[in-house]
């Protein structure tokens, strides 16, 4: 049976990995140059405990189930995970009621260890919090991951179990012809017996091509500030504010790499590919973050970024078989808490696909490739050994994040390897530090060209026409071959 998964975000890759347990010919098509190029690379990186979603919804169930799967999944595939906990802060007297509602909702959704705490305890646990805080919901089970690193790890695990990944294959049209699916893609026409639509913000359009029951996805942009890592952490937990109808509100959170993230804004936009940041939204994020953290200093900002949420009009995930179109499955409207829910979405949907299509499990399902510890996290003894085994560990390419040549080459050689500067950056952190690639990008570019066997002028930042170099000097002076 030929299965095509459309979309290489965290959900598509989690599904690819889960499906790779079964006997089938599986291909994943990704419109971008790499997996995790859409919402999966630009979000808050929170594994939500699950108090936020309305009880009884898909969001609530899959969030809570997914969050509980995270520690083991991340260990199995070699992705970062931590559980620093979270707080939802109330600043106004009337927000206490919201905190109580969230508490009740959390209990109903099956979230454990929730507790409402008062000002003194909040300030004792998180001394940088605005002292005007009144009370908070303490959420010890709130977790963190690195969403793109998780996606890469899921993709690698799927690939070693036979899933084919095709990048730059954007699916524009899908139809059913003589019992098979025909997909028009930027890499030509492709056919499949079964398809799984995980196309993120594009999933609504594909759904509507297959079903008479139309859905509407609204691109909702979220903008963030990322601050340099400092020790000790400014906040050890994810600090939420009371949610509004546009989302969970602005958060101030540590990342697993010790940076601080502020955001997101929430603004509905026309263009789903518009991930430019705007002065207005960033100003809002700055202002709202100060409510949580009055001591915020933007001097430590190392970058800003934006992501697009796939908000479904009715506000819930649509997961399962496409109504009236046998053989088509989908995950539509997967916005927050989609990252948290992804493992549970994959388990639920693949379970359904396997049983409805009598897929048989493989005799052997290979474990995920072993991921070496990053150099920056190694002890001195581990470094001594690493460089003895592979001299390329001795060449530090990214000085800000201490990323070695060995790791950059390994990132390119992974089963689903990096092909761009951004792909290397997200897999290794080279260029993610305070100089933002100023020093290391020429060397990373050189290594990419060497490993991929392409000319340096062909190396892109993030695929498409994002080449870094336009020509050699000789060509620019009209002396060389164009």
């Amino acid at each position: 049976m030929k299965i095509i998964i459309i979309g290489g975000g965290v959900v598509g890759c989690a599904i690819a990995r889960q499906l790779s347990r079964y006997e089938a010919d599986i291909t994943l098509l990704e419109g971008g140059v790499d997996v995790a190029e859409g919402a999966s690379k630009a979000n808050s990186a929170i594994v939500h405990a699950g108090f936020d979603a309305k009880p009884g919804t898909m969001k609530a169930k899959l969030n809570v189930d997914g969050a509980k799967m995270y520690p083991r999944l991340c260990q199995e595939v070699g992705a970062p995970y931590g559980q620093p906990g979270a707080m939802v802060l109330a600043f106004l007297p009337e927000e206490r009621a919201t905190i109580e509602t969230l508490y009740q909702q959390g209990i109903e959704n099956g979230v454990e260890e929730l507790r409402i705490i008062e000002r003194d305890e909040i300030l004792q646990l998180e001394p940088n919090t605005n002292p005007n805080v009144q009370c908070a919901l303490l959420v010890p089970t709130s977790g963190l991951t690195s969403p793109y690193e998780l996606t890469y790890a899921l993709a690698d695990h799927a690939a070693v179990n036979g899933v084919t990944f095709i990048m730059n294959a954007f699916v524009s049209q899908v139809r059913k012809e003589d019992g098979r699916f025909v997909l028009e893609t930027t890499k030509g026409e492709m056919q499949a017996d079964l398809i799984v639509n995980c196309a993120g913000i594009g999933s609504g359009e594909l759904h509507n091509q297959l079903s008479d029951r139309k859905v509407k996805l609204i691109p909702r942009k979220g903008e963030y500030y990322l601050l340099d890592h400092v020790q000790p952490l400014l906040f050890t937990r994810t600090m939420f504010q009371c949610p509004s109808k546009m989302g969970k509100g602005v958060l101030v959170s540590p990342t697993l790499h010790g940076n601080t993230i502020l955001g997101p804004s929430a603004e509905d936009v026309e263009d789903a590919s518009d991930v430019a940041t705007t002065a207005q939204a960033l100003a809002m994020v700055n202002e709202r973050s100060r409510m949580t953290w009055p001591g915020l200093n933007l001097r430590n900002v190392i970058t800003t970024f934006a992501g697009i949420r796939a908000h479904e009009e009715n506000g819930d995930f649509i997961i399962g078989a496409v109504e009236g179109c046998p053989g088509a499955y989908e995950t539509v409207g997967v916005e927050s808490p989609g990252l948290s829910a992804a493992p549970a979405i994959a388990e639920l949907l693949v379970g359904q696909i396997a049983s409805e299509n009598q897929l048989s499990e493989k005799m052997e399902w290979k474990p995920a490739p072993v991921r070496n510890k990053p150099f920056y996290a190694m002890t001195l003894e581990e470094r001594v050994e690493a460089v003895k085994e592979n001299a390329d560990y001795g060449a530090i390419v990214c000085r800000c994040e201490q990323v070695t040549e060995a790791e950059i080459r390994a990132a390119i050689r992974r089963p689903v390897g990096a092909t761009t500067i951004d792909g290397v950056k997200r897999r290794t952190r080279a260029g993610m530090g305070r100089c933002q690639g100023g020093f290391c990008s020429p060397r990373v570019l050189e290594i990419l060209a060497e490993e991929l066997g392409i000319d340096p002028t062909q190396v892109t930042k993030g695929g498409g026409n994002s080449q870094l170099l336009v020509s050699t000097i000789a060509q620019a002076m009209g002396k060389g071959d164009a």
Partner: protein
Amino acid sequence: MLSNELKQQVQYVDVLVIGAGPAGMAAAIAAREAGVENLLVLEREEHMGGILRQCIHNGFGLHRFKEELTGPEYAQRDIDKVQELGIEVRCGTTVLSVDEHRFVTAISKEKGVQLFEAGAVVLAMGCRERPRGALGTPGSRCAGVYSAGTAQKFVNLEGYMPGKRVVILGSGDIGLIMARRMTLQGAKVLACVEIMPYSGGLNRNIVQCLEDYDIPLLLSHTVVDIEGKDRLSGITIAEVDEKRNPIPGTEQHFDCDTLLLSVGLIPENELTQQAGVELSPATQGAVVDDNLQTSKEGIFACGNVLHVHDLVDFVSAESFRAGKAAAAYVQGKKRQGRFVEMKDGNGVRGVVPQRLMIPEGETEPVQVMFRPAAVYENATVVLTAGGKEIMRQRKRIFTPGEMAELTLKPEAIRQIESDTVTVDILA
């Protein structure tokens, strides 16, 4: 704690210099000339010379050599001297950590992890460019936005052009140099945009790199939007008010494929911080005394890691002093005296040194450097100690783009009776 096996690998070095750019080379030369035999320089790049290697324009060495050299030529003089003196330099070797006891770890392809215990450490790691992220400029995160030094490396060392239609944000020296360089290589430089009402670079660079090529310098302007899906397609700039906020209605659009940023340099002090050395918020470098010694005994700092210079000649001069002082330190030549604080006063930012020793014995002249906080014409810099003026010097122009320098003479130093000396610019 080190395992016994690793402990045996620790090498003792009298003076360990981190960095073989102009600062590190000068410090090493001075230390050797002062008699230090057990001396080692660690350099993360494959070659000595630091950033000078990519500065192929001329204008270096006017003060030190009384002639106009290119960056590589200037560097070569020090490289030759280092080699002539037989100083050991390990290139391709990155220092991973330095602690306050001067225990240093480093790594290279050839030698793997290397451990050192140093009698004195000279920090000479240089500086880095402020990236786009630090400005918080909104817009697309497409390709085509580079710091000027990165573009300079692509053009001068790798032989590639990063773009054809260029706007430069910031008027730091590297940006100005790159305006000319890109033009000479066939690119069209549309404008140089500076948020401040004055240039951040040297006046000679404004003339030779912008005016000579008819590139407009737009002061009190900044980039407010960056457009482009994959590669940069255009930018929008706007005039700013006194608070540096963009003024609505003043927007101008440029079609361009490249935006070069020359928006400031930051001393690269990660190792300095690891060692627990006190940093100055004004210079973002270490707090040092007139011997270039930091708050940690036996750890010295010089060159752009200490404070960002405009001219390499001054980097070398400062670093010779640091190397000499490091040598004296390991040779046990302790100075006796009392320290006074040097403070930034009116119109003055980042006085170096921040501490001055009034020695018991012979007093030597001290070089004092700082950046003017704004432009002052026909102004006077005055040093005051406890209400008593100890020195004054008049200058035709003070501007933030040019480091101000003065020599505090022994007779002035001996007049200091208070605990602090304040440096003010009086208009």
